Every structure is written in structure tokens, then in C-alpha cells.
């Protein structure tokens, strides 16, 4: 049987969430986030950004990814995610490590050698 997580909403009414569906959505977003970090790291390396500008580019791409995910889920994001803020901030640092890895790699390949 699938597990069910009851949570009370603002009105005090109980809503049961399906844990398998939540985990499925979160892992899908996680996949997108890792890909986004790698690819935007590549782009930052190609563009030759350095210093603070590269980190600003990372913030920008995280924000763009957030907007794209919300756009995909449509107007009813509440149907798929419990809150939007965790969608934006989840595993921010882990993706940053991936980003820096690809950024430095591509920067070295294109601009240094």
C-alpha cells in the first residue's frame, strides 16, 4: 500500500498527500536542477565569466529554472508541490558545486588553453 501523509491546511481541513507522488515530483525537479547546474556551468565557462559575475549567472539560472518549472506545472502548482519556496532553495549548495565544477572546467578548456 502507498503511504499517505496527512497535513492540515490553513482552514484546518485535513489533506492527505501521497508520499510516492511527492517523492516522484521532487526527484524530477532534482534531475532538472542537476542538469541545469551542469549546463549553465558550461555556458558560464564558455562566456568567460569570472569572479562575482559567474555566481550572479548561477543565481539567474536557478531563478530561470524555477520559473520554467512553475510554468510547466501551470497555474495549479499547489496540485504538485506543497510549497514553492523549497522548490527554489532546495539543494542550492549541492547544485552550486556542480556548477563551479563545470564552470572552471569549460573556462579552462576554452579560455586558458
Amino acid at each position, binding site marked *: 500500500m502507498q503511504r499517505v501523509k496527512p497535513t492540515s491546511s490553513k482552514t484546518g481541513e485535513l489533506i492527505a498527500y501521497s508520499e510516492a507522488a511527492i517523492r516522484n515530483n521532487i526527484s*524530477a525537479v532534482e534531475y532538472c536542477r542537476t542538469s541545469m547546474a551542469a549546463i549553465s556551468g558550461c555556458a558560464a565557462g564558455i562566456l568567460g565569466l569570472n569572479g562575482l559575475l559567474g555566481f550572479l549567472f548561477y543565481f539567474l539560472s536557478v531563478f530561470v529554472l524555477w520559473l520554467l*518549472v512553475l510554468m510547466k506545472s501551470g497555474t495549479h502548482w499547489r496540485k504538485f508541490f506543497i510549497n514553492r519556496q523549497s522548490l527554489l532553495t532546495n539543494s542550492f549548495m549541492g547544485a552550486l558545486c556542480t556548477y563551479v565544477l563545470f564552470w572552471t572546467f569549460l573556462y579552462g578548456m576554452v*579560455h586558458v588553453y
Partner: protein
Amino acid sequence: MANTIVNKILLVAGFASLLHAAYSAAHYRTYLRLTEQEFTKLPLDIVVQTVVSLIVVIYNVIQIVGNFKEIRATVDMQGKSWDTLGNFPSFYTFNHRGKALSSTYVPEEESSESGKSKMDLIS
């Protein structure tokens, strides 16, 4: 289904475009080094190509990952009948006394220990 194929093709094209932009940028750096000019910024077409292919790749990755599932548990359960939900395979019983009602049932006449205990269970 056709949509995902289009997305995959676009994803591959975006990656190829990104690689091409990287190659162009490297080429430009080599050109600057050979002509002994100072590097200030990349030409605009490489920048545009990189940014556009980045956006294309991210968009297609999100499309490929599949649709999100509805997280409310009731939505998932509404489509199922009680026969599906109340199905517990661990509680299946096949050997019970109801088989005596069958027209092809032949009562066993045995005096062995195992047969006796089986008859005890049946009666």
C-alpha cells in the same frame, strides 16, 4: 510521444550548438593570441548562441523529465475500486473446507497421520 521525440532532438541540437559555441570561443581566443590583441569580450554572436542554446537545453530537459504527479492522495485513489485497494495477497486462502461443496470432490479415505490431520482441519 511525438512531443518527447521532438524535445530529444532539440536537446541534442542544443548540446551541439553549445559545443559549437565553445569551439568558436576557443577559436576566437587563438585568433586574438596570434594577432596579439587584448581580450576584452567575446563577439556578440557567440554570446547569443551560448545563451539561446542554454535556454533551449534547460527547457527541453524539463519537458523530457515527464509530467508531475498529483500529490493529493485522494486523486490517486479515486480511480481505483475496492477490489484493487483491498487486495492483500498475504491473506489468500486456497485450502479450505469449501472444496467439499464441489461436485468433483472425492473425500480421502486415509488412515495415515497426515491424512487424519488434514481431515481434522476440514471438518
